[in-house]
């Protein structure tokens, strides 16, 4: 159990960062986990090629809430490409059935590496990725609205 619920996950699920709403986001996405009704909304606004602001709201289990909270801390204010790359690496980790990725990728993930164990529980994969699905969609929308160039990296479900 302690492997799944790493301290950093428990901490972030209680003291969450980045909850709120933006006044005029460039992109927003609402996602729901139909098996349990968990939901989240992620809003983003861009400045050129930078994810200038991110805010999220939602309700869900500790895994989904901690994932959103950490996502905020790691991508808010960062270059778009970096945020999207992080999202893809995180997806890869969660789909890796509980095994770590290469040391370089684990380093990139920083605290998100605490989610490694989630991949062992197929029922929880969606929980960990819910916020990141919203982020991906919100960013695609924002790129479209702002005309920010560049393509998001290759994606996997």
């Amino acid at each position, binding site marked *: 159990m302690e492997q799944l619920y790493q301290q950093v996950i428990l901490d972030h699920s209680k003291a969450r960062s980045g909850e709120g709403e933006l006044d005029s986001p460039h992109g927003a996405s609402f996602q729901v986990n139909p098996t*349990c009704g968990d939901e989240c909304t992620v809003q983003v606004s861009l400045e050129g090629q930078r994810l200038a602001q991110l805010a999220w709201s939602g309700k869900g289990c*500790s895994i989904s809430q901690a994932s959103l909270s950490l996502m905020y801390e790691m991508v808010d204010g960062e270059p778009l490409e970096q945020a999207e790359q992080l999202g893809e690496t995180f997806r890869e980790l969660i789909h890796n059935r509980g095994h770590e990725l290469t040391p370089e990728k684990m380093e990139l993930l920083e605290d998100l590496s605490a989610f490694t164990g989630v991949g062992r529980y197929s029922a929880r994969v969606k929980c960990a990725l819910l916020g990141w699905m919203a982020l991906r969609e919100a960013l695609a929308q924002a790129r479209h609205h702002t005309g920010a160039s560049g393509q998001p990296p290759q994606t996997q479900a």
Partner: protein
Amino acid sequence: MTDLLDLAGDFPLLSRTVREGKPLVYLDTGATSQKPGQVLDAERAFNERHNAAVHRGAHQIAEEATEAFESARSAVAAFVGADFGEIVWTKNATEALNLVSHGFLNASLGRGGADAARFKLAPGDEIVVTELEHHANLVPWQELAAKTGAKLRWIPVTPEGRLDLEQLSVITDRTRVVAFTHASNVTGAVTEVAPVVERAKSVGAYTVLDACQSAAHMPVDLHDLGVDFAAFSGHKMLGPTGVGALYGREELLQALPPFLTGGSMVEVVTMEETTFMPPPQRFEAGTQMVAQTVGMHAAVDYLSAVGMERLAAHEDHMGQLLLEGLAEVPGVRLLGPTSSAQRLAVIAFDVPGVHPHDVGQVLDDQGIAVRVGHHCAQPVHRRFGVHASTRASAGVYTTTADVEAFVKGLHQVVKFFA
């Protein structure tokens, strides 16, 4: 005190271990029950000895298969207090409920001739459901309302999680259908059927009962209850998946237009049109789930041998133990009646500050299987101001030891997330 029933040994799956060697504590019977060896054996024996297409073929095995199929219908009918011709096989209860709602829809579109006119719905008519329903007995009625222009109304739920029988005035002269659950799969509350049926009858509305939870856990006599239609499923009552049944009063099934059409349900087919067989065949299009009906036959035989009164008494005791155990865990909020009277051993609850997924995960780590989520009943969760809940539900095989393990596990959950 020893348990009234000690039947876990009949259920092969219950002897397995989970999560690295932990004995399984199965408290998710409300979602699907485990199956006794008798049911598994019956299906296998049918497939090994008697498998053939039913109602066709002049060979001996086809006759045997048809005999097995129809004798299963007979056994299931007797089990729920219905006549042979009043039971229609469906793949599950959801299909059974859709069969009724689509029968009404097809009648509303003019199908079924003069006989079916009694099922016509139009703008100005109303369909009454309840806030307690499983989505299977809600969404088909929403769809029927949207397609016919009828209005959907609903009976609310009391703070205790029962149908609010003070609010039966929702059923009016405009009401054509009243669809309601016999026992909630969330609050466990058993509905007092008589007042609902009486009120519906007084305004000439048809009644449709979701008997999925009840048929498996208490004696049910559909003729006594006086409902017009009822649905239940095999897999919730120790039988196989892939088989369920619709009960319909004979006179109504005679008049109801078919839902699924195609092979096996027709008399004369020309390029222009088709005449349909009488019920129940009219509603059994395509190749049927024969082995599953044989399994369901074995399931109702098993339940009858145990005795539904004894089973209900045993499960009532398990329900009491669950409720007492839950009350000891600090902060936990029960969604449903606090006493085991007029209630099934289906115990849904909220652990404030801990999401049901997390509750279920920590229980699972101890080998305890419960349901988490909205249990296909979002409106009643909304009624209680929660998104989702954790649910422990007992069955014929549940033991005091299972309940003790669950209560201990729940204390562990609260400690873990404190």
